[in-house]
């Protein structure tokens, strides 16, 4: 440890940055996590490198981790410049699940819509080229004040919309106002009307409702609806009706039933993309996508499941990208009414799950067990203080007896998406020995959300018309804010279990306000404990996100939220 070098950095950092530096120096966070967190809170790469060197290490692939604080040249990270090698020209054909409907950037809820809109529209913070973290997008840099309550974003200059209009801070402010009005799941309670202010044409200042150290993630690729749209976009404007964007590709055709096509945006700020265009082809199931790839009619799959996509793992001409994520399934149980209103019944059900068996059957081991809370083991603030719940049929029976429940018969609602139908059947068989009779009831996934998970009515509180028992899919988030804010906070917009807990709301509030690694970890320990005990949802696993492309293409990278970044993609040779 070179204390003299370390002290130099210590003297030049803000209190928040100092906390992260100290956490790394004392071994409480990994080097990777230090780079990640340091860049998020505005620490320069030079400063990060100095700390790592002082602590006896070397920085690796700093460009891949170039986050907010470090000013990056246009196209140097994230939505990056064209690949150095590879043939120019051509179109990549991407297979994706059929989207739900029109491409409303603010209201979209499915991964395919996320992926399509992200070809034309861009985020303040995009995905780093190694797909591990956020990187400068339309924002070139971002810095918090000492309390994490005020964030200043410097925007790229020289960016234009597809129609030639200059991109300015006014577009960002108008977008944020629309997101606030729409009750965006990631930003609700974080910013309010008037929180975003254009300080000048290329600077936006966000004054948050309360301090939030993860704010850049909430205006990044990981909050899929936070795409920046033109100031002129009114609520309800859809990309397919009013094609616009600052991104590398322009939408030329969109048919919800068949696919979407894009052509290169020759005036993109990141330079000329190697590909002439992108074609999305929509499918209803992964099996058809795999067949289409084998027949040579598609080049890439945005996402596939391990069972339907089994042939791809052994295909020598296909690159499988496997990313550990916080993707998971929530088996919600209505906590306010019905068969699961008593906590003991929910705990009993959670105890029937044989998580390792589920992971092996459904993912061939490509997942990790979850513990009925959303703080995944990958998060730096994950606390291992809560004992992992394992299958215990005897205890489940005891809990049911304590609750006075005998011969429990319930219907398990689910959407037909990836492995979920198989999960429903496995849950049925695992719960049976405890005396819980489950009837799986599957519906088309597009209709499922509105019919079972969050029905139209009653609208207040949200999701109060949800079924009493069901499985819903949740995509990856680099921080748990969206999960906690939407699915568990009282009156959260995706709170299908109608869970309401003062203890949880307080713990979540503590987490949001927490400054520093130790404080966040302590807050998360409380969250884990409360959720694991109350079990408003049972969560069996966090599974790896699987995507891939034919080896005839290079430079393709994908977020775990279905956004396939193709600005650097090119044909091989």
């Amino acid at each position: 440890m070179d204390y003299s070098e370390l002290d130099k950095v210590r003297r030049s950092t803000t209190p928040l940055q100092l906390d992260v530096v100290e956490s790394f120096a004392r071994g409480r966070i990994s080097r990777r996590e230090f780079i990640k967190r340091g860049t998020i809170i505005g620490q320069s790469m030079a400063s990060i490198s100095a700390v790592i060197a002082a602590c006896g290490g070397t920085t690796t692939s700093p460009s891949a981790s170039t986050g907010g604080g470090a000013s990056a040249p246009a196209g140097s990270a994230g939505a990056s410049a064209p690949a150095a090698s590879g043939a120019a020209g051509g179109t990549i054909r991407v297979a994706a699940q059929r989207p739900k409907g029109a491409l409303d950037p603010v209201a979209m809820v499915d991964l395919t819509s996320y992926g399509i809109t992200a070809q034309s529209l861009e985020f303040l913070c995009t995905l780093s080229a190694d797909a591990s973290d956020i990187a400068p997008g339309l924002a070139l840099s971002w810095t918090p004040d000492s309390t994490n309550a005020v964030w200043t974003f410097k925007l790229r200059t020289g960016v234009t919309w597809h129609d030639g209009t200059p991109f300015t801070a006014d577009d960002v402010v108008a977008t944020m106002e629309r997101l606030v009005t729409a009750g965006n799941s990631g930003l609700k309670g974080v910013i309010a009307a008037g929180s975003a202010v254009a300080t000048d044409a290329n600077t936006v200042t966000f004054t948050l409702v309360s301090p939030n150290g993860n704010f850049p993630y909430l205006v990044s690729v990981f909050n899929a609806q936070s795409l920046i749209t033109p100031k002129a976009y009114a609520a309800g404007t859809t990309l397919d009706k009013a094609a616009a964007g600052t991104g590398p590709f322009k939408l030329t055709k969109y048919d919800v039933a068949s696919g979407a096509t894009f052509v290169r945006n020759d005036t993109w700020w990141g330079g000329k993309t190697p590909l002439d265009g992108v074609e999305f082809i929509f499918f209803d199931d992964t099996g058809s996508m795999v067949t289409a790839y084998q027949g040579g009619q598609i080049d890439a799959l945005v996402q596939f499941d391990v069972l339907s996509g089994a042939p791809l793992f052994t295909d020598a001409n296909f690159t499988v990208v496997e990313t550990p994520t916080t993707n998971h399934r929530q088996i919600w149980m209505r906590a306010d009414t019905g068969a699961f209103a008593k906590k003991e019944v929910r705990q009993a059900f959670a105890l029937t799950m044989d998580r390792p068996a589920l992971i092996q059957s459904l993912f061939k081991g490509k997942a990790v067990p979850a513990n009925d809370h959303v703080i995944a083991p990958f998060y730096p603030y994950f606390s291992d203080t809560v004992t992992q719940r394992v299958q215990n049929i005897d205890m489940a029976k005891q809990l049911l007896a304590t609750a006075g429940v005998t011969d429990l018969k319930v219907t398990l609602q689910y959407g037909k998406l990836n492995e979920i139908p198989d999960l429903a059947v496995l849950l049925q068989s695992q719960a049976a020995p405890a005396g819980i009779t489950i009837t799986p009831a599957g519906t088309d996934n597009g209709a499922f959300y509105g019919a079972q998970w969050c029905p139209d009515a009653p609208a207040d509180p949200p999701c109060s018309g949800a079924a009493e028992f069901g499985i819903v899919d949740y995509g990856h988030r680099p921080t748990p804010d969206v999960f906690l804010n939407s699915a568990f906070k009282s009156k959260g917009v995706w709170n299908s279990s109608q869970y309401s807990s003062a203890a949880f709301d307080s713990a979540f509030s503590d987490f949001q306000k927490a400054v520093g690694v130790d404080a966040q970890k302590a807050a998360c320990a409380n969250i884990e404990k409360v959720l694991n005990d109350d079990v408003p949802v049972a969560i069996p696993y966090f599974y790896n996100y699987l995507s891939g492309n034919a080896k005839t293409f290079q430079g393709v990278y994908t977020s775990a939220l279905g956004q396939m970044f193709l600005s650097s993609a090119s044909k091989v040779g």
Partner: protein
Amino acid sequence: MTRYFSRRLVLSLITLWLLATIVFVITNMLPSDVARTILGPFAPQESVDALNQRLGTDRPLIVQYVDQIRKLVTLDFGDSFVSQRAVLPQILDAVGRSAKLAGLALLITIPISIAAGVFAATRRDRKIDRGIVLLGVTSSSIPEFITGTILVVVVGVQLKLLPVLATPPPNADVPTQIRYLLMPAVAMAIVYFGYIARMARAGTIEVLGSDYIRTATMKGLSTTQTMRRHVLRNALIPTVAVIAVQIGYLFGGIIAVEKIFNYNGMGATMLFAAQHKDLPMLTAGVIVIGIVYMVATLGADMITAWMNPRIRLDADR
């Protein structure tokens, strides 16, 4: 003939009106708030009410019914709830795609199956007849999704002879389009071969046993002349009726085939509309398929009347 045609046309229009009425009744029986469906669960109630007012879905049912019938006459189906675009061009696109697929399937099926049926009839109870009958029964008892899947795996994936997706690239020329549509068309043709061949065989056998054919043979007409002048014209009347029904069925879209080959025809369009409560699209789809059925059966009636003068004479009386 004109009188016959007019009567059939009036009957068809009445059928279409009944169909429209049934569709309206069924779609309005569904417990659904149209504006809420469009705007989603999180939209403010004021926006939902405003949209219902704009769409006219807050009006009394009888007013909506009269309005819908009036619009149907002008083929104004409104906008899709899902894509928020005009329904008619989307439906016409889907019908166009289904027409291509159905047309190719019929082009393959009709000549082969009629020829096989008539050939089998002329060699009744011989090995070739039994072979054709067996082939027909077997092919029509294998569902399209089995045939389609086998074709995809063998012809598309293993041999890579034909594309596994049926949608051709934009602006593809006719040979390319045929190449893309060939596998699904064959999958459909295999099933319908059995139906049509058996019908043609049965009709031909019946006619071959009739007195006037015996007379024609006795007066010295060759077998070819007898077949061409007397047998086919009478034997194929029931076959024409079957083909007309199949045309309507094929235009309506074979959902299984469209799914396997990821082809966005009428079947996939209608299924998607049903799954997403897209009532304008669903209504338009049912009506358009009804029109196709009507035109196909009307055409079959006309052909039948042309082939058999007794039918039009009966109708004219």
